[in-house]
């Protein structure tokens, strides 16, 4: 199952980096989010890239939900190391995913936010809500190490 899953993800969710295709949905045009998915044990890691703002939010939300549900993973890690901008709309998407994962009994964490993003994350209070890890390795060890 896991190898099939990886292939699917590569095909569907990993477009070439230079194709920031603009498309229209519900009257709002938006960019295709840059994201790479990989599953490690019971945890899905999603590496996000680009500006997480209102232009990106609808597609970002849908792609994360789709990827997470399809993966069958219990826990979710969002790697922010390639994210170039984050505002309250992007944070809203992250918080919405947190609520979903929690409702399904899973845990969620953030990985490697760039220094630029830290003041925004701190001010939002998200550090009180979920763990923020320096590296993916550290995050995976914590996610997989805890029974649940």
């Amino acid at each position, binding site marked *: 199952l896991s190898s099939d899953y990886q292939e699917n993800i590569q095909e569907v969710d990993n477009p070439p980096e230079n194709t920031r295709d*603009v498309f229209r949905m519900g009257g*709002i*045009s*938006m*960019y295709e989010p840059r994201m790479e998915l990989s599953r490690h044990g019971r945890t899905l890691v999603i590496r996000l890239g680009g*500006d997480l*703002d*209102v*232009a990106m939010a609808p597609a970002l939300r849908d792609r994360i939900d789709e990827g997470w549900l399809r993966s069958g993973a219990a826990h979710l890690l969002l790697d922010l190391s390639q994210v170039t*901008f*984050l*505002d*309250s*709309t*992007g*944070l*809203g*998407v992250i*918080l*919405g995913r*947190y*609520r979903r994962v929690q409702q399904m009994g899973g845990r969620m964490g953030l990985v490697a936010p760039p220094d*630029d993003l830290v*003041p*925004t994350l701190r*001010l*939002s*209070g*998200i550090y*009180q*809500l979920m763990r923020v890890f320096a590296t993916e390795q550290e995050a995976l060890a914590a996610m997989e190490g805890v029974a649940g």
Partner: protein
Amino acid sequence: MNRRMELRFASLAEHVGLARLAAAFAAAQAGFTAPEIEEVKVAVSEAVTNCVIHAYPDGVGEVRVELVPGSGVLEVTIHDRGVGMRATADSVRPIDLSKGDTGTGEPEGMGLGFVFMRNFMDHVAVTSRPGHGTTVHMEKRAQRAAATAAGSAG
């Protein structure tokens, strides 16, 4: 020489990035540091996003962004001619995540936007008239400039 610039665009989500780019440019002209420029980008993104989402519920309208960079200071005005805000910024309840409150209303993140504007800029004023639009005026002073002013005053 006044380095004022003005940007007018349709209230579309993809234009918020354009406003951020212009704001970053103006903030750099004002002599801000990289972290200060980032703060300006977030504040402007929040104000323009509000125009995109709330100002014109029946379609698309105009958003005007005015940027006035000075020496160590930046003035930003974001204006729309939309429906106006029913509540003033003060009565928008900020989402307090530290108390486990993740908010339940839509759109997600509303309220937090004003928290960012207030914290990242030195001055934020919102004026709004139902049916006539909303104007958000913000000012930010560079830390370095503020320190110099305090030093010369003392």
